[in-house]
Structure formats: C-alpha cells, structure tokens
C-alpha cells in the first residue's frame, strides 16, 4: 500500500519535470501555432550553457543558470527574429522543416563542441537530500524542488499572459495576428519576445534536467516527445493544462515502471494515446485553432 503511495508521489513529482520541458513549447505553440521540433535540443543546449558557465567561472548550477538565462533569452529572440519569423505565413511545413533542420544542426554542433560523453550538473548534497513524510515514506528534495519550480513557472506565465499589457498582446496576436497589427502590435516582435521567454523557461528545465540525470547531445528528441505529449494532453493554450499533462505522463511512467520496469516509457505514450482518443483537443483547450 505505502509503496503505491510512494509510486504515485514520485510520478506526480516527475510530472513537474515534464511540465518544465513542456512549458516553453506550450508558450510557443499557443502564440504562433509553431511546433518547435528543436525544443528538446534547445533544452540540451541550455544544459550545456549552464555547464559551461559552471566550469568557466567555477560557480554552482544556480548561479550559472542566472548567468546563462539572459544569454539564452537573447539566443531565443535572435533565433526567432533572424530565422523562424521568415518561415511564418507560408503554411505549416516551412517552420516544421526549419526547426527539424535546427534540431539536427544543434545535435551535431553540441557533439562537436562537447563530445558524446554524458555530463551532469553537480549540485552537491542537495541532490540526495530527502524529506521524511512517514517512517517508510520519504520524498527527494530535488524532485520536490523541481515540481515547485514547475508550478512557479506556470504561475508566472499565467501572470505574464493575463495580468500584463505584453500578455494581452501575446493573446491578441495568438487570436488574430492581422487585426493585432491594426492595434499597433508588431507580431514579429511579439514572436521574438515569446521565443526569448520560452528560452528562459527552457533554461529552468535544463537546470533540473542536468541536476537530476545525465545528459548528452543526443537526448533532445526524447525530451521533445514528452513535452509535446504534455502540451497536447493539456490542451492548446492552457498552461495549467500543460502541468496536468506533465503529471499524467509522469504518473503513467512510474506506475508502468512499477508493474514492469520495461514498461516505463511505453506507459507514458499509452496514457497520451488514451487521453487523445477521449479528448481529441486535450483536457483544457483554451485557444481556438
């Protein structure tokens, strides 16, 4: 009995990590209907950026993240401004192809720059610290922190979207980019800003990914898949939905793994499939597609 409580707790907390992977993707997908196939590789890029800051400056992962985040914001802004904005308004295929190409370029560039060795962001004793809930039930501090950060990120994105003038412009552009221009909203600048914000979220995801597990230049596409599934389960345009989507995949994976360790990954995909069959538009769709 207790072991099941433990499994479900672990699963939900793992969902926090997946929600972090997914939040940036959800933001971009929600505003410009762009499926960024390089999203997973951007997470890996951010992890290497944090790692580089750690080794170059001899600082811990959190400080390294704070240094890397503004740089990653600028990279995201520039990527959208110089590359992705050129692919918009020409149908769905060009952005897909360009981000697919970007994914391959990123993987190879990272292989070239950092080799295929797996790395980790070492955070010291906090990695293994845990909180005892009951005699036989403890939860790791890192998973808890990851989950809390996911909730904080979702909360912050909601505040940005629903409480600020820029957020209004994000939603207006997402609704009707032509009319948004009549309001003086430069949709290209909005897209670039959104990609910049998404890269900061990606950096947060990378921080936890790197502390929690090994990473190497090839693991991006799998992270993209989890993120994509979480966004779709949650429904287009809903950040809370994305969090729920992440939790569902996390739960399915840990429950699947408890039944049979080989089923972990498969169970997540099956959960995605089942939700999609029952709710083709996801659980909490907001935006009109």
């Amino acid at each position, binding site marked *: 009995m207790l072991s099941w409580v433990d499994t479900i707790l672990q699963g939900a907390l793992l969902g926090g990590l997946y929600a972090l992977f997914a939040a940036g993707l959800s933001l971009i997908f929600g505003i410009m209907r762009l499926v960024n196939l390089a999203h997973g590789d951007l997470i890996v890029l951010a992890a290497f950026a944090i790692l580089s800051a750690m080794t170059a400056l001899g600082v811990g992962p959190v400080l390294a993240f704070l240094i890397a985040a503004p740089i990653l914001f600028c990279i995201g802004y520039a990527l959208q401004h110089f590359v992705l904005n050129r692919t918009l308004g020409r149908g769905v295929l060009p952005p897909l192809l360009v981000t697919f190409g970007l994914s391959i370029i990123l993987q190879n560039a990272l292989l070239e720059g950092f080799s295929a060795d797996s790395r980790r962001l070492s955070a010291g004793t906090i990695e293994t610290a845990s909180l005892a809930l009951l005699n036989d039930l403890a939860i790791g501090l890192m998973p808890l922190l990851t989950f809390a950060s996911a909730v904080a990120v979702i909360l912050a994105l909601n505040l940005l979207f629903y409480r600020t003038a820029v957020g*209004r412009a994000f939603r*207006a552009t997402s*609704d009707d980019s032509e*009319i948004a*221009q*009549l*309001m003086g*909203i*430069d949709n290209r600048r909005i897209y670039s800003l959104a990609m910049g914000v998404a890269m900061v979220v990606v950096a947060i995801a990378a921080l936890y990914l790197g502390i929690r597990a090994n990473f190497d230049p090839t693991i991006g596409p799998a992270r993209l898949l989890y993120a994509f599934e979480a966004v779709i389960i949650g429904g287009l*345009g809903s950040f809370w939905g994305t969090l729920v989507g992440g939790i569902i995949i996390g739960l399915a994976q840990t429950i699947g793994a408890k039944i049979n360790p080989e089923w972990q990954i498969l169970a997540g995909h099956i959960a995605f499939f089942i939700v999609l069959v029952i709710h083709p538009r996801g659980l909490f769709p907001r935006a009109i597609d």
Partner: protein
Amino acid sequence: MPLLATHNLDAYYGDFQALFGIETYLEEGETVAIIGANGAGKSTFLKSICGLLKVSNDCVVYAGHPIGGLRATSIVRQGIAMIPEGRRLFPSLTVEENLLIGRYGRNVAGPWTLETIFALFPILKERRSTPSTALSGGQQQMVAIGRALISNPRVLLCDEISLGLAPIVIRDIYQALQKIRETGTSVILVEQDIVRAMQTADRVYCFQEGRLSLSGKPNELTRERIQSAYFGT
C-alpha cells in the same frame, strides 16, 4: 491640403487587381462615405490605407507624407485607426481588454479614454469583464468601435459597422458615430445602406468593380446617377 488622399491607387491580391486608379481625398473633420455593391473593392480600399494590403508608397498621402505600403503598426501609430469588417474582436480577451489593446501602439492624450468610451456605450461598462464572445452583435460592434477610438485617431476607417445588426441597434451605433464626429475626428465610412450613407456623410464616393464610378455631395447626386454608378446599369 486634405488630411488624407489617394492618388491613382491600384491594389492587388496576387495577380488579381482589385482597385484601379482610385482618386479620393478626405478633409480634416470631414466624413466621407464609400458605397458600392458587394465585391466593389470597398474593404480593399480601407485595407490599402491602413497597411493590411501593400500598395505603392505615394498612392496614399497622409498629413503631407506618403504612407502607402507602410506597415499597419506604423500607420496606426500615426493616427489612422480601423474598425474592420465583421468586428473581429479578440475572443480570448475580455471586453475591457479588447478596448485597452487598442492603444497598444498609440497611447496619446485626447477625448477618448476607457471612461469616455464607457460613457458613450454604458452597456460595455457593465460587461467589461465578460469575454467578448459572450456579447450580442451590437455590443460587439460597440467594442470594435471603442477599440479603434481609444487610440484617439485623427482618421477613423469604418468598414460596414451596421452589417447584420437590427435597425434599432444601427440607430444607436450611428448616434455614437455622430458624437465621435463632433470631437473632430475625420471618418471614412464604408456602408452598404445608401440612404444611411447619404444622411451621414459630407461627401460620397461610389465604387464599381474596383473603379471609382461617382463622387459628390449627397444633395448633388440624383437617385438615377447613384443607381447607375452602383449597379453599372
């Protein structure tokens, strides 16, 4: 010198030419109506002015400067606001947010603020927090008007603001338009209802298949001339 003028304005959708050499002008404080049958090019004309359709630079002159082909964001910043055909409110924004977004690109002092727009359309104040999709057609049109007004434009482009509304609602909308004109705003009014257009406007232009077929003051134009300019008979 007129506030806004078009000179030999051509407009295209790809290879299809929708406007042919349109010559018009609008004086400061004036209201002109554009009439014409469906597909005559009225909306295309407004889109060419507000920057949604690319045209050559010197075809549109505003306050002495060519603005043809500039981006829509830059044109609204200079004081030309558009109420698009079919209202096109932002569905995921509330009524109040739809109004506020109108001054995103141009936030200047003038007669129009959230408060004065609520005074013009009191029902919107009551419904300020509802999603714009929950409103009736007439209320949605009020939001679309307020959204354009809040930027305190010098020129207001209205594309069929009475379309699909009940007569009593249309009367309210046109009463509001009268108050808007009294603040000195210049208006280009695209209207299918010829009688309504003649009553409201200082001057009228009639379009037919992308060409200007008639222009003049309402009292100078006879029924016959309008009919032939409208239908091409």
